[in-house]
């Protein structure tokens, strides 16, 4: 039983709780092949999606999950809301809670916003990505995909490559994977490796070949072009040369290595097209699994919560 009222981050969850979410998602994923996909366990619930940052996969995936569970979804377009009139975040969420919504799904460019909302309303808050802090449902779907493909995570070697410093996906993955006993290595330009990340429970390797060697999973992160302007790296050409995931580099990993990417991809920058579309990629599988994970999270926070 999930011992939380919110999903703020994987740093707050135990290994048992993570495994429970993965199990629940396995159950929901079975529905995908049935003619009737809906399980209206949340048919009296309405959630609001509060996206202060753009998103395709996460937002679409939460919307799909809500539809499949029969929940209503209140679409909150930040750009046309009173946020533009200077309403504070705290006032916005208190107003939404007063309308009677049953939960808040939030994405924001600043770390700690889900915690701030949870302090100010008494309905479940689900973090859909906050600053560089956490993106728990992404890491859960990554772990779900790993488990589905390889059976278990404990002892597996996971290498994450890219802009580690500005990545919430990395942080949630490190928290979750290390709790489940995986061996996590991060790699990227040294200017994009944040201070003290080893203390979160991962290894830092600078040479991409060394980082990939013997990996069971390679998780490739999106390179944000604006980082080039900040002098974090000189050009996408040099980035691709030094850190890009190419077929010859993939050969250094385990034979049955799986390639993952949280999207959106820059083909020819962090990943070559033949790897992205290659036989060992599970990138689109991750997207399908995202729906199952989000169903599990919503169900466990909202349906089971009432049953308690």
């Amino acid at each position: 039983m999930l011992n939380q009222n919110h999903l703020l981050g994987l740093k707050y969850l135990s290994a048992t709780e993570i495994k429970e979410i993965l199990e629940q998602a396995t159950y929901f994923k079975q529905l995908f092949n049935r003619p009737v996909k809906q399980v209206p366990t949340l048919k009296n619930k309405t959630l609001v999606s509060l996206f202060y940052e753009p998103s395709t996969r996460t937002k679409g995936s939460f919307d799909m999950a809500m539809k499949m569970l029969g929940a209503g979804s209140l679409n909150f377009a930040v750009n046309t809301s009173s946020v533009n009139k200077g309403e504070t975040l705290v006032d916005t969420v208190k107003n939404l809670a007063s309308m009677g919504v049953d939960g808040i799904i939030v994405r924001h460019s600043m770390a700690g916003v889900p915690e701030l909302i949870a302090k100010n309303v008494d309905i479940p808050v689900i973090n859909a990505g906050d600053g560089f802090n956490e993106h728990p449902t992404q890491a859960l779907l990554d772990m779900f995909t790993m488990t589905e493909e390889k059976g278990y995570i404990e002892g597996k070697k996971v290498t994450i490559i890219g802009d580690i410093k500005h990545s919430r996906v990395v942080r949630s993955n490190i928290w979750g994977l290390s709790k489940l006993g995986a061996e996590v290595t991060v790699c990227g330009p040294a200017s994009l490796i944040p201070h003290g990340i080893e203390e979160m429970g991962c290894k830092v390797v600078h040479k991409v070949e060394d980082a990939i060697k013997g990996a069971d999973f390679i998780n490739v992160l999106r390179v944000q072009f604006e980082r080039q302007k900040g002098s974090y790296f000189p050009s996408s050409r040099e980035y691709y040369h030094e850190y890009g995931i190419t077929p010859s580099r993939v050969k250094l990993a385990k034979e049955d290595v799986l390639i993952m990417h949280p999207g959106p991809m820059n083909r020819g920058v962090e990943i070559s097209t033949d790897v992205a579309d290659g036989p060992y990629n599970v990138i689109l599988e991750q997207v399908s699994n995202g729906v199952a994970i989000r169903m599990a999270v919503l169900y466990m926070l909202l349906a089971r919560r009432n049953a308690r």
Partner: protein
Amino acid sequence: MKLLLKNATIVNIDGFEKKDLLIDKGRILKIAENITDDKAEVYDLTGKHVLPGFIDLHVHLREPGQEEKETLSTGLKAAVCGGITAVCSMPNTNPVIDNKFLIKFLKDRAWEISKAKLYPTGSITKAMAGSEISEFAAMIRNGAVGFTDDGLPLENMCTLRRALEYLSPYDKPIILHCEDRALAEGGAMNEGALSTKIGLPGIHRSSEEAAIAQSIETAKYFGRVHICHVSTKGSVELIRAAKLRGVKVTAETAPHYFMLTESAVEEYNTNAKMNPPLRTEEDRLAIIEGLRDGTLDAIATDHAPHTADDKNMEFNKACFGIVGLETSVMMTLSKLYHEEGFSLEQIVKLCSFNPANIIGVNSGKIAKGEVADLTIVDTEKGWKVTEKLFKSKSKNSPFIGRSGKGRAVMTVVDGNVVWKEKSIG
């Protein structure tokens, strides 16, 4: 009216004496044993210590312009309730204090309020815009004690050179907020393992240290600088070395830098967000050693009041700064005196004698003929910080809930008892 303080232990930087203290017309008339005076208001201060009035070199009083956060009235009252007899106000108000009329306005308001004394500072550059220097001489004639663009770093070292040279005949300090904004990268907390862990953008220590190094090397040739709110071990080392080389540099730190570390922000606690940010345990210990060996000359609060609304928001967006006037003496006595073994003489030096010298005012000692600004403390009295303690308009303190020992019990300014604790008869 005369004031007679009996049976107190008088502390100066060079020692103790247990005597009575007679005050008349704002000045110390007599220090002797067994003074009697029928016309005086008498307090028995057995077991208490009488210290030269504490001067807080770094206070944001917010008036004019941000009266919802603090006013001169609430701020100067908060100061005396915390045992502070004089404060230096920072000029980053709206409008900026960059001319004699505003200095005069502040001095007049403080005189009307008659709580803590006000030693205003003016801005180094007009409107704190960083280019033309302000009218230092006119402001000094009206009571300004130093010049600073606090809150904004002075990025152009040539402006610093000109300000130092121009000001050098007047014996008032240029007070520097040392921060390389490019290195600070708009961060919100100390950069390190914790900022990585909780995903907040960091302010690397190099942003403070690089700016201090640059300022020291400039001051070496052109004048005297006072460095604000030192927060890192590296900064302490730079200042220590500069003093050995004979550079005219003084420096202050704040109680939060010797009390707390970055772990106070772990739950996105905006009441522990300030600039420079709380650092690590290693830094905290280096700050204490800097205070102990005299590298750091003064304890100043950087009292920065903000309303609850200014703090109840996204951590990155929340205002920098915490209040400190009411808690400074408590923190200093409990941490430095009780836990770290500082003597009361050392504390007088850090909180009164050195600050007076830095801004060039005649204060900081208890002797016949001196102005009677006094901080009276009970080193054994316990305290617990609650919201109710704060007389300031704002209550943004990371110390709420904390308890300890040693606090001010009575404050005398110009020979008047401007505040006393209930237990003082």
